[in-house]
């Protein structure tokens, strides 16, 4: 079977699952719903794996396969900036290349595991079928996003995942907080989409096409022909516009605010959408647009700085959060910052590598936390946990692996990818030592808060409610098996990209090379460093991580947890961190309430002034009408009535005759007859 030409089926299978579950799922037993939901994704995974394997067999330069289904739309002629005519036409097409193959494997693979997990986790829920329908719709959108052959196809998925995120965050729609969070997520994402759509339009008017490959070629040709130059404001503009989109979807400063709130959704959703796949869409998009970003080093610098700052910012908030899912959410934001740091310094492959490893261990951590929450009867506050190690051993062990991986302990996936990013941030021409330093600090903080989570949850003395304590139990197999698979992935996935200094080949980077081929731009020469130096740097970052772990060990393992001591140890910083630097309040004050005020103000303006003008002119007309009515009545009609009145008055003698009595008239008639007879008798003589 030629899977390469069937890649368009990959997003389609989940659609089938969505339709079946959405339309008749209510009447199906839960087991069937689960099988349909997970099965559709499994089939997609099989097709993805087949397609990727066949792609891998092609020579490296031919690893780009486009399947064009039909022309989606053709909105007519347009003038490009170069004065050329082009047609704004968009194909419904799918593109499989090394980048999208990594993405579809991550999405379908981890997606499948999370579907399986959900059959266990969501088993008690009434809206089971609805949940799986949404999940499948999400899978469709996400796969369209990463498989689309042009920017608008990507945009379909981009908006589609936004919708699914909206639906899934709002899954517990009876909770107001869930509804608020869902709306917040969608609207904040929309702000990003605003930028993204402007970027896409700019791409079209610049190159006359929005096909990824065609745009890439156009950039190369333009560069070769000298019609494009590096740091052209146009490219900076496009790159920044696209990056605005990325900050929205991937929760970077300043648009990260929706992601922590998105934890209102069910935990598998947090794992799938808000950790492993959807939030990495921004990373994917920037990586996909690498040819544009390479043309705009200034924009790359912005990406790197934003990424590093986001990493630091989110990590610092994560230090003091008490909700187990919120810690992970801020961790996600922070790790995404890492990825953008990598992209910003030109290490696209490193960014994507971290995207992949992060997908494994963060999905694992979320699912593990879900397992904990499941065991604790929907208690998410870590202050009410503790000493769960022996009660839910599988969850504990897998989560420990995930924690070690994210902390960057050598031998696990996180180490390879994170170290790659830090090294590139230091060594790449676009990199800077300050960026590296930020990255290292964040690494230490990450290790600290993740171990804080681990210790607070599984060690120490139990702070669990007595009612809950008796019921704590390990989760069913449908939940633990995905955990174990993901734990294995969190270890193994790193070995795809063993760096050169460890004697590896960095296979992952090679695989992506056709996509991230550097443009022929003259830039600062790459400073060569010895492998030993690189190893030293890696050791340094590991040392920092270990220091973070030790600190957490001192604070949360050796001494039993006391909220007051924790608050005291941060001093004045604690309320700031606990309240997330008051950013939500700031945004509310600066934007949300201002927009609402503007709405109210304009509404009043509309009612009073605009409509007032209308009504005013109406009442003016009425006043005028009254005036002319007066004129008409007293002057114009007055003359008429005067004439009438005059005649009436003057006619009184005649009126006397007109009595209205029939017999009067008859009498007069008789008199007339008399006169006629009299005249006949005597008058004629």
């Amino acid at each position, binding site marked *: 079977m030629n899977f390469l030409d069937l890649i368009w089926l990959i997003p389609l299978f989940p659609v089938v699952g969505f339709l079946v579950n959405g339309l008749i799922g209510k009447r199906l037993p839960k087991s069937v719903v689960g099988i349909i939901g997970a099965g559709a994704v499994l089939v997609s995974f099989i097709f993805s794996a087949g397609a990727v394997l066949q792609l891998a067999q092609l020579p490296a330069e031919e690893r780009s396969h486009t399947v064009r289904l039909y022309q989606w739309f053709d909105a007519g002629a347009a003038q490009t900036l170069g004065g050329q005519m082009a047609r704004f036409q968009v194909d419904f097409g799918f593109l499989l290349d090394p980048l999208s193959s990594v993405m579809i494997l991550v999405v379908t693979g981890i997606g499948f595991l999370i579907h399986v997990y959900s059959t266990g986790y969501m088993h008690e829920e009434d809206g089971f079928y609805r949940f799986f329908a949404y999940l499948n719709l999400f899978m469709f959108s996400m796969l369209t996003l990463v498989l689309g052959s042009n920017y608008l196809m990507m945009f379909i998925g981009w908006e589609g995942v936004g919708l699914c995120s909206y639906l899934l965050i709002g899954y517990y729609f009876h909770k107001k907080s869930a509804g608020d969070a869902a709306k917040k997520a969608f609207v904040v994402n929309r702000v990003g989409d605003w930028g993204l759509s402007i970027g896409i339009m700019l791409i079209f008017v610049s190159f006359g096409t929005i096909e990824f490959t065609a745009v890439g070629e156009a950039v190369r040709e333009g560069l070769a022909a000298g019609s494009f130059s590096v740091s052209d404001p146009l490219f900076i503009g496009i790159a920044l516009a696209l990056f605005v989109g990325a900050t929205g979807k991937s929760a970077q400063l300043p648009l990260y605010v929706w992601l922590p709130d998105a934890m209102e959704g069910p935990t598998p959703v947090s794992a799938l959408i808000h950790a492993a796949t959807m939030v990495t869409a921004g990373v994917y998009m920037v990586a996909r647009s690498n040819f544009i970003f390479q043309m705009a080093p200034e924009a790359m610098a912005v990406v790197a700085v934003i990424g590093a700052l986001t990493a630091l910012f989110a990590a610092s908030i994560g230090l003091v959060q008490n909700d187990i899912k919120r810690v992970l959410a801020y961790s996600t934001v922070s790790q995404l910052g890492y990825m953008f740091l990598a992209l910003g310094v030109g290490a696209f492959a490193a960014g994507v590598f971290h995207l992949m490893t992060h997908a494994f261990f963060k999905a694992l951590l979320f699912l593990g936390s879900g397992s904990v929450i499941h065991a604790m009867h929907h208690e998410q506050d870590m202050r009410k946990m503790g000493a769960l190690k022996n009660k839910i051993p599988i969850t504990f062990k897998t989560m420990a692996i995930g924690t070690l991986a994210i902390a960057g302990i050598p031998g696990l996936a996180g180490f390879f990818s994170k170290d790659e990013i830090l090294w590139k941030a230091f060594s790449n021409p676009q990199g800077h030592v300050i960026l590296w330093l930020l990255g290292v600090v964040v690494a230490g903080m990450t290790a600290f808060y993740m171990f804080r989570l681990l210790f607070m949850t599984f060690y120490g003395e139990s702070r669990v409610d007595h009612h809950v304590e008796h019921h704590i139990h390990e989760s069913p197999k449908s939940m633990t098996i995905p955990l174990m698979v993901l734990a294995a992935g969190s270890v193994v996935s790193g070995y795809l990209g063993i760096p050169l200094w460890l004697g590896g080949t960095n296979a992952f980077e090679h695989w992506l090379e056709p996509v991230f081929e550097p443009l022929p731009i003259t830039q600062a020469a790459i400073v060569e460093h010895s492998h030993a130096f690189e190893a030293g740097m890696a050791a340094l970052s590991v040392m920092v991580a270990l220091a973070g772990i030790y600190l957490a060990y001192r604070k949360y393992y050796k001494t039993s947890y006391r909220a007051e001591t924790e608050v005291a140890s941060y001093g004045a910083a604690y309320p700031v961190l606990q309240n997330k630097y008051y950013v939500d309040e700031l945004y509310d004050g600066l934007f949300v309430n201002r927009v609402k005020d503007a709405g109210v103000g304009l509404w009043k303006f509309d009612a009073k002034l605009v409509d007032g003008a209308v009504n005013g002119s109406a009442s003016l007309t009425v006043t005028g009408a009254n005036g002319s009515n007066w004129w008409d009545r007293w002057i114009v009609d007055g003359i008429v009535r005067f004439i009438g009145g005059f005649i009436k008055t003057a006619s009184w003698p005649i*009126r006397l005759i*007109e*009595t*209205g*009595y*029939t*017999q009067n008239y*008859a*009498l007069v008639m*008789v008199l007339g007859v008399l006169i006629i007879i009299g005249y006949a008798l005597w008058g004629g003589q």
Partner: protein
Amino acid sequence: MVATHHYLFLAAALFTIGVIGVLTRRNIMIVLMSIELMMNAVNINLIAFSNHLQQVNGQIFAIFVITVAAAEAAVGLGIVIAMFKNKETMNINEIDLMKW
């Protein structure tokens, strides 16, 4: 033999009585009856002359007059009924809408 002018005097008397009735009575029924009287007076005249001139035309005209009288009586009484329904009165003076 009775001279024709006797009949004419009789007719004149009846006619004048009819006129007096029409002009003075307030009861609409009697007004109508008075009109019948006047018609009869005219008929007497017609037939007297018919007899006088030895021509049958006068009698034929009398028949037409009787026809008209019948029609007039029918319509007139219809009006009386309609008027009575509307105004609950027989008084001709109350039908004075012609006065403005």
